């Protein structure tokens, strides 16, 4: 085997006592594309930052071209030949394509001015090397995201990059643009560049990558050739589940009985489409039923929730509650119809940190509590006291700012905000993410209890255990479309993982029938 371009040797990294990475070793070889996969918080970005010199490892070392690498700054890594392409395009949309390509290193003439003619000529030549033909004088912002991403790649790689790190480069691209980008990756491989390819999309791993490394909770859980693994095995390792023996009744505190409700659904969402994120997703929730939405990150779970709640505009689709629908669908209309939602991003979309616990709880109920412009103190305090007691929200006083509470208590405040509207349907997007074990257990048993009382719940979680044990029926999403509807005994981690993996395989077969399929 050749000398690895980058050799990461059992590195570890802690942040304020919390382990971000421990004992992770990865080798990147020239001419190989190395996939790095894992769910959120697995440590992928920490690993990238250790390689590019943003962070220094606490233990272990990073070697570059056989020498210990001690980059003090990402700039040094870049100068040494390690280029990084981030998820979001880091270019200047108002400048020309060529201007972006040569940003900060524009060719100059003998007067020290930019030699535009040479810059445009060189830019055309460089881009042609990637099969991109655009007018290099056009403003970058006028081009599609895919082309922009490609120009970011060209910019990063031009010069003498020996290692290219791509952080989810296709997350905002259309399928056609993805194809173009993967061609560029293949080109890099032919030029003997070592590529680290971070992605959530399994089909890309199997289409373009040679090696794959799976991180989970800061540890390396699998590394090896792509040809030696299967989609199912990858999904299982990413989610921390054993394919052979999937445990039942683990750490969750959901009620065991999961009734499958029948009759008229209380919530019916049909044909939700928002290109390119959602494609014809339909969801039904009955009263007293918990429906799970499963899928990998970026599969359209949150987008489905937001579509039902009227947050984002839709290309197509209808939402009705108890058979009725509003003409102009918005969060306010959804709330009036009896839908409640607790968003995924607690900090940026949920709490109003500067307001008190009391004000945060009654926020959505304000229109109902207001008479002639004034809030009824008595009714407000009744509600607040009821739910603080009921959900055991721990705050020093009701006047404490919500921003000062723990994550679990903030989450309970958000639940209270929706529950005090007495909704018919409650959408919970990652209700237990990032909160402590105790609060997690409380929220899980609350969900079961609410369903028993007749509430319809749509439960989104990236923890399979939570979906399987919490929900009676599970919809599996992939790439913005429903790929499976599991009910009854079919609701198992095994089946969900099969659905995710199976869908990838089907898709793969359609797109590239000749691709080599790996066995176990």
């Amino acid at each position, binding site marked *: 085997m050749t000398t690895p371009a980058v050799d990461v040797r059992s590195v570890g990294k802690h942040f304020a006592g919390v382990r971000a990475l421990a004992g992770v070793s990865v080798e990147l070889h020239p001419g190989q594309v190395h996939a790095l996969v894992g769910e959120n918080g697995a440590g992928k970005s920490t690993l990238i930052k250790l390689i590019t010199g943003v962070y220094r490892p606490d233990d272990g070392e990073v070697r570059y071209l056989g020498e210990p690498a001690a980059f003090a700054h990402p700039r040094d890594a870049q100068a040494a030949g390690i280029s990084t392409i981030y998820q979001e395009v880091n270019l200047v949309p108002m400048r020309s394509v060529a201007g972006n390509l040569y940003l900060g290193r524009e060719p100059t003439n003998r007067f020290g001015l930019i030699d535009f003619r040479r810059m445009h000529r060189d830019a055309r030549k460089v881009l042609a090397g990637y099969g991109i033909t655009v007018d290099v004088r056009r403003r970058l912002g006028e081009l599609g995201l895919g082309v922009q991403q490609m120009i970011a790649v060209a910019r990063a790689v031009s010069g003498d990059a020996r290692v290219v790190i791509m952080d989810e480069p296709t997350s905002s691209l259309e399928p056609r643009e993805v194809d173009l980008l993967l061609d560029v990756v293949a080109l890099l491989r032919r030029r003997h560049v070592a590529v680290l390819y971070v992605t959530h999309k399994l089909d890309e791993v199997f289409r373009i990558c040679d090696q794959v490394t799976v991180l989970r909770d800061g540890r390396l859980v699998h590394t090896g050739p792509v040809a030696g693994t299967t989609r199912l095995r990858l999904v299982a390792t990413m989610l921390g589940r054993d394919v052979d023996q999937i445990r039942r009744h683990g750490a969750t505190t959901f009620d065991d009985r999961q009734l499958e409700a029948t009759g008229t659904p209380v919530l019916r969402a049909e044909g939700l489409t928002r290109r390119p994120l959602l494609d014809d997703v339909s969801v039904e929730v009955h009263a007293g039923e918990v429906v799970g939405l499963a899928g990998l990150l970026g599969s359209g779970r949150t987008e489905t929730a937001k579509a039902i709640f009227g947050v984002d505009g839709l290309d197509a689709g209808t939402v009705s509650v108890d058979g009725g629908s509003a003409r102009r669908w918005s969060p*306010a209309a959804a*709330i009036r119809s009896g839908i409640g*939602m607790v968003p995924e991003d607690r900090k940026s979309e949920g*709490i*109003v*940190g*500067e*307001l008190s616990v009391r*004000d945060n709880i009654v*926020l959505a109920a304000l229109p109902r509590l207001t008479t002639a412009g004034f809030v009824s103190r008595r009714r407000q305090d009744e509600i607040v006291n009821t739910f603080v007691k009921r959900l055991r929200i721990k705050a020093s006083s009701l006047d404490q700012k919500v921003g000062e509470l723990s994550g679990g208590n903030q989450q309970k405040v958000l639940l209270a905000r929706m529950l005090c509207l007495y909704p018919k349907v409650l959408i919970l997007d990652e209700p237990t993410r990032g909160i402590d074990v105790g609060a997690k257990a409380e929220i899980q048993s609350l969900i079961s209890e609410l369903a028993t009382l007749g509430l319809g719940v749509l439960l989104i979680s990236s923890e399979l255990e939570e979906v399987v044990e919490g929900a009676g029926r599970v919809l599996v999403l992939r790439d913005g479309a429903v790929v499976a509807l599991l009910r009854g005994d079919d609701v198992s981690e095994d089946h969900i993982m099969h659905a995710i993996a199976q869908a990838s395989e089907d898709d793969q077969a359609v797109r590239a029938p000749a691709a080599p399929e790996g066995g176990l």
Partner: protein
Amino acid sequence: MTDALTARRGRLDTLGLLQSGGVYLAIALLLVFNLAFTPNFATVANLRLQLVQVAPVAIVAVGMALVIASEGIDLSVGSTMAISAALLPLYLGYGAWPAIAIAVLAGAAVGAVNGSLVAFARMQPIIATLGMLVACRGLALVLAEGRLTEIFDPVLGALGNDAVLGIPVSVLLVLVVTGAAAVAVHRAAFGRRLLAVGGNRAAATLAGLPVKRTLVTVYIISGLLAATAGVISTARQGASDPSFVGLLIELSAITAVVVGGTPLSGGRVRIVGTLMGALLMQLITATVIQQDLPDSTARMLQAGIIVAAVYVQRGRSRA
């Protein structure tokens, strides 16, 4: 470890105290200084003069505080004053009260445009209201044909110079406006909506609050108050002067808001603090003038205080 934590906590508390009470402390210091060193400071006539002079800024600043709480800013207040001043003499023929009503409604209209640009056209508040700053001053000059018009009207004269129970009418108006704003913010549903929209717009939207209506309302209030300040200024001067009335008042108002402890980042507001901020700036100017120092000194002092106020807030927000 524990000691270091306590020490840091202690420092932060001092900062917090400075932020919430700094403006009162500064006013107290200035009053003490003036009582000791400025002859004829503690006379009824002088104190009344200070209050009357601060009235327009104080009224505008209260509106500004509400806009800033919504995570916005209103630069068009001075030009709105000019429009209201320009309209007064045009409609005085129908009587003083109809003319005042028209002037104030024009302010509301300017606010409605500002609010619509921000809420519906999703323009940045600073850009939207900067445009209105230019446009409205121009419109005011067109309305008044660029002229200063002297006004001889008993009602306006009374507004400018009379007193009720020894308190000048304009000062009473400041008290009413401040009181109403404080009630609206701390007691009424509007205040909760405002602080939620300013504190976390996404959360307010997801809670089903009428975010756009709230934004438009807050700019309308600011426009109404600015036009009211325009009427007061005109009444006091006895002349409609659309070229100069309210010139640069947006800066004084923003200063009063910030010095009064309202952060520019939105989601929090101090109405009484804003009033005190305006008063502090007025006291600084008065002190400097009465000590026979040049006006430029007052400006530099004010600049220093603004920087200090923002610094204190920065320390607080990092906590």
